[in-house]
């Protein structure tokens, strides 16, 4: 890695009506380096990348690419200049195969036909260069997310991209897939490709990034060499204050049993699950991707029609055939996918918060009580400090952390006695994470039974009272969080039973 700068962004300022999204931000990228761009949600990372990519026009500042000042007016121009962005939501065509996707619109032709022989040869060459083992003839829809991301990267490389922007590339990958991605990133570095790496996971930054630039509220906070900093300093730079600990000291006061699951089974999803949950405790559920954690939660929440086994609430057998039944019985569920399953993005904050309890606050038994609805929304906006201009703001305009708080408000509005949280802190920033942890303590203090599903083992270990570990649709064992460590969990998660 040389010191040659491939990209320099100087004093970039961008104002949206009423908001200064970027204020004199600097960013530079060396040839062949991986440069982390850190900041809480709303800090301006995406805006900066959109300015770079030609989606937004900057108000001030300059962009120098390989020594030349540039001004992209479209993403196409940026792409031609060697810039590629790998978005969180991948942009591949599911029914086409790998090769067709990589060379979409740039296929070699034989007359009017696609020259498939050459297409597959070229694709294999690119995949080989990246050391990726994927069949060029496989359809995208048959690949897992990790492999799809590799295809997206291969596509960028095949377009001679010299700068790759990766926006939270690991957010939906398993640990194993993350390892493969990191190997790939190393190989890209060898090809002298420079990478802008946007992530919330600090461990990853220390694992693969050379330098870090931190933004906060649209301002440039600083640029540091990864080797010369630590997690505490970076968090400090990101949030502008010292966060004492990543996790609060949780206090549990387990009471009587509130939920018992007895031999619950769903064909193809869950094999005979049995466990119990007490009031005022947090039961962690760990397991690898695809181990059935989410399915276990959903089967308790009434999502699956075909199921056997029993669910008892306060010792009484429940019949739960739909989410409505579960909510009626005080069981609520926070989905791991807030955009797809949690929110109606095109509706206001208030409508999203009140949707589950709308019929409990009617005027003349018929009409929505607008005043009561507003009051409810305002209560949660205050309680959870949701950052929004008003309760009528559309949810799609909020940052990830605030969107998550809206979904949580919706759950809380039903006054649940059992709360199942599925990856509650996925894709949200450090500050918001901490707030959600504190909220979990509040729930426990109020005698709610909490089930916490998380891929992040430190989260499970630090926040739970007891831990269930799943493997291949089955509960493998239970651990006491006080004397378990990551290794104990991984043993069970990879299929080795407790003695």
């Amino acid at each position, binding site marked *: 890695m040389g010191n040659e700068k491939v990209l320099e962004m100087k004093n970039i300022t961008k104002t949206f009506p009423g908001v200064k999204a970027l204020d004199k931000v600097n960013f530079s990228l060396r040839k062949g380096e991986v440069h982390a761009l850190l900041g809480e949600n709303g800090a301006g990372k995406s805006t900066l990348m959109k300015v770079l990519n030609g989606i937004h026009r900057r108000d001030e500042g300059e962009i120098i690419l390989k020594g030349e000042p540039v001004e992209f007016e479209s993403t196409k121009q940026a792409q031609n200049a060697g810039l590629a962005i790998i978005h969180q939501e991948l942009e591949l065509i599911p029914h086409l195969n790998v090769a067709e996707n990589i060379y979409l619109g740039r296929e070699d032709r034989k007359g009017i036909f696609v020259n498939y022989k050459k297409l597959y040869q070229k694709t294999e060459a690119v995949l080989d260069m990246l050391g990726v083992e994927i069949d060029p003839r496989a359809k995208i829809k048959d690949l897992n997310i990790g492999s799809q991301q590799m295809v997206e990267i291969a596509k960028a490389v095949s377009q001679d991209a010299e700068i790759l922007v990766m926006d939270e590339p690991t957010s939906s990958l398993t640990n194993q897939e993350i390892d493969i991605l990191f190997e790939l990133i190393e190989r890209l570095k060898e090809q002298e490709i420079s990478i802008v790496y946007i992530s919330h996971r600090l461990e990853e930054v220390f694992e693969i990034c050379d330098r870090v630039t931190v933004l906060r509220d649209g301002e440039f906070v600083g640029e540091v060499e990864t080797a010369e900093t630590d997690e505490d300093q970076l968090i400090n730079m990101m949030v502008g204050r010292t966060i004492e600990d990543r996790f609060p000291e949780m206090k549990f006061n387990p009471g009587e049993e509130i939920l018992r699951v007895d031999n619950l089974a769903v064909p193809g999803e869950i094999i005979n699950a049995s466990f119990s949950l007490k009031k005022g405790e947090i039961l962690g559920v760990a397991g690898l991707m695809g181990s059935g954690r989410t399915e276990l939660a959903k089967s308790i929440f009434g999502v699956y029609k075909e199921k056997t086994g029993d669910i008892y609430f306060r010792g009484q057998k429940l019949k739960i055939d739909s989410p*409505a039944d579960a909510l009626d019985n005080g069981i609520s569920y926070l*989905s791991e996918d807030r955009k*797809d*399953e949690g929110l*109606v993005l095109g509706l206001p904050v208030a409508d999203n918060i009140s949707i589950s309890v709308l019929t409990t606050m009617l005027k003349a038994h018929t009409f929505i009580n607008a005043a009561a609805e507003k009051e409810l929304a305002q209560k949660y906006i205050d309680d959870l400090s949701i950052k929004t201009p008003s309760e009528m703001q559309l949810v799609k305009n909020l940052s990830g952390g605030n969107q998550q708080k809206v979904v949580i408000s919706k759950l809380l509005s039903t006054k649940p006695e059992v709360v199942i949280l599925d990856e509650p802190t996925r894709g949200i920033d450090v500050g918001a994470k901490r707030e959600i942890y504190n909220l979990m303590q509040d729930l426990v203090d109020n005698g709610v039974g909490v089930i916490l599903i998380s891929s992040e083992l430190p989260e499970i270990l630090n926040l739970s009272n007891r831990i269930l570990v799943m493997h291949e649709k089955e509960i493998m064992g239970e651990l006491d969080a006080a004397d378990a460590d990551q290794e104990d969990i991984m043993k069970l998660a990879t299929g080795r039973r407790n003695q």
Partner: protein
Amino acid sequence: MNNLSSNINKKNILEILNKFKTGIGLLALIIILSFLSPYFLTIPNLLNVVRQVSIIAIVSFGMTMVILTGGIDLSVGSMLAFSGAISAGMIINSGLNVFLAILIGLAAGTALGLFNGIAVAKAKLPAFIVTLAMMTIARGFTLIYTNGRPISGFEKTFRFFGAGYLGRIPVPVVIMFLLLFVIYILLKKTPLGRYIYAIGGNEKATKLSGINTDKIKIAVYALNGFLAAVSGIILTSRLNSAQPMAGEGYELDAIAAVVLGGTSLSGGSGGVIGTIVGALIIAVLNNGLNLLNVSSFYQLVAKGAVILLAVFLDRKSQQQ
């Protein structure tokens, strides 16, 4: 700072213009036509336009709700014909009381809509296919029931609904505005309306919020069948005849009115106020071109062009 505030003002004005753009379009059309034809802006002509629009508008209200949930209903024209024919048959052939006959006609339309809803919500079939099938099935039922011949010649009581007046206002217009009001309130002020928007925005999330989304969808399709039946009965009454091929192509006019009115075809945003304006634009355009003696062949082209232009402008304004 001055610059910034004038920017914000400009943005507000643009937003307001954007919100009322269909209304502004309608107004512009009316102004232009009032210059081109002296007869256009007279009360008899305007009443004539709203009376003409009432039948398609009532169908469009139902269509708006269906489209808001992210669905579509191609069978409205056939359901309309079937309901009209049933009511007519009950009066003429079976000699039933007019009001009872109307109730049976409304029930028939509602039942067909209910079937659509169950097929879409419970059997999870695509709305396009289900209602395409219903379009031919209901048309078939109508032809079977009427033997392919019109049922004509009603008494005064039945004719009132399509041809009568309340003061100077035609009865269909009164019914249309009544339904517009009721559906507007339903969509904006009741939980059912909220759920309709929510389902169109994100059905999965709505279901996980504890809403029985299947029930809501079935209700919407049934309501749509009911409104098609209302239209069918008014049309039968106005023409003094139930035509077996009545309402052919109405589904496309209704969809056009909904889209012109700014309701998104993918669901989740829009409303009936836009739809009535959309329906009026089509009706005013037809009326104006008639007054100007433009051949109906050209009118078809003009109608299509206006729909294209409106949707194009809508896209443009959303991109900005």
